[in-house]
């Protein structure tokens, strides 16, 4: 299953032309390499400050554009990654290992599951699965180890 790891912003990250501390970049790089080596990191991107962005507000048939910057840094998104892991707990474990992107500062990382095809697929009952297992076990190529 896949999770989007949403890194929330901080007032520093929202500053125009803000560049991360080189030491921090190094640590982040090492961490991301670890995720890659473990085969769990599918994608990763950082976002410019909200001053370079816009919002489109939907209301019935009308669309209103609001240009950035936006206030409430902790509600904004500074970056995201997509992890492919076995469970929410595994995603949490990986996220906890990451460096603090805002030394001394507080911010949040939100972990959300991405919809997959299986979420819509019908699921067999335990009985049907057992039936399939029994049928499969009876196939000749399953006895190769005997």
């Amino acid at each position: 299953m896949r999770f989007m790891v949403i890194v929330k912003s901080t007032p520093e990250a929202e500053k125009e032309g803000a560049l991360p501390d080189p030491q921090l970049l190094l640590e982040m790089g090492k961490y991301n390499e670890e995720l890659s080596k473990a085969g769990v990191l599918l994608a990763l991107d950082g976002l410019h400050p909200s001053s370079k962005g816009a919002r489109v507000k939907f209301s019935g048939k009308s669309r209103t554009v609001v240009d950035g910057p936006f206030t409430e840094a902790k509600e904004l998104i500074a970056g995201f990654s997509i992890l492919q892991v076995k469970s929410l707990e595994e995603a949490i474990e990986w996220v906890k290992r990451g460096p603090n992107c805002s030394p001394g500062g507080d911010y949040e990382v939100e972990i959300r599951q991405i919809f997959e095809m299986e979420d819509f697929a019908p699921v067999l009952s335990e009985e049907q699965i057992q039936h399939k297992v029994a049928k499969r076990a009876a196939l000749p190529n399953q006895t190769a180890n005997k």
Partner: protein
Amino acid sequence: MSATDPHHATHRTIEAVWRIESARVIAGLTRLTRDVGLAEDLAQEALVAALEQWPQSGVPDNPAAWLTATAKRRAIDLFRRNAVAERKYEVLARELEALEQTSPDLDSTLDNPISDDLLRLVFIACHPILPTESRAALTLRLLGGLTTDEIARAFLTPESTIAQRIVRAKRTLADKRIPFEVPRGPELAARLSSVLEVIYLIFNEGYSATAGDDLMRPTLCEDALRLGRILAELTPAEPEVHGLVALMEIQASRTRARVTSTGEPVLLFDQNRAQWDQLLIHRGLTAIERAHKTNTTRGPYLLQAEIAACHARARTPSETDWPRIVILYTELAQLIPSPVIELNRAVAVSMAHGPHAGLTLVDALASEPSLARYHLLPSVRADLLYKLGRHPEARTEFERAAALTRNTRERDLLLTRAASCEADPTNPQEK
């Protein structure tokens, strides 16, 4: 459930930690104990200890180090007990103890050459001395961190059978004294191809899952991809590893489009390409580029990946670069001569150069004994004959294909096409 039951929540966390750390822990322990079976047993014992202790004590800050330290302590105890009977255990126990005293930070001791150990573990789990199905089970168990029950459900096989396979595999590795090492020289290519075969087998097992199967089955694709991606980082200079990863990424990109909502298969050309996962396609294309950077000849996995990439790049079936696919199939057929590949090449040729050119190649396969009962041969031939306007012949071939296929939906489709041959009175080229 987890919110109201802290005990259950800790178990889920321990499972996650196990998933992340088990391969590295087992790999490190195998180097120390020189016995992969024993290493896994010790790691499992450490896991059991964690399941007993962590719900009360809380999850330690460095869970991998905790698991390794616990497993090592058990190893020392075990070797001490066995030392009376055999000298080699005494030596091992002393070595382990010395290691523990000189380096209090157990994790870093194990972590340093960890990628080497991990790669050794990959090679030993996929050792050609083991039957293929045992290699797959052992790989999922040792490197994927799956339980025997999960492997059994994924392969639709009774748990006792999988457990037996794993026990026998470990015993074989011990009895034959298979060394814990990365093969070198000419042996490397053969051993690597065994590893790739196992990973692709796991992937295909997941890919062949159908609607309603146990959900462990489709996740085999993710397990295989994860193993492939790990291997690609461990052996970045091996083009076939990147080739296999690319092939799997691109095939996985079609997961959403390849079956209907009721679970019926959809052919490549009928798939809604908007449903293809562009992220996985991008990853697949990147993996192909990495393979090209190693600057060696193309192997079978890379060639198949490049064929898959031709389809992935085409926004519509008509945009497919068929001449390139012909070249790739020709190269593939030279590497692994196979009538099935020849048949695929014939289809590509027909798309690139017209049905007549394709039919000549298909006709050359008519006497191939291994294709005698292969429904796709008459099915492809029928399609080409139909395109050439030779409808009565096409009808016979469609019917022959329908009689050979075991898939009822496919049979219906073939019979419908057979019937359409008769219904069409125009027959432009019939004389």
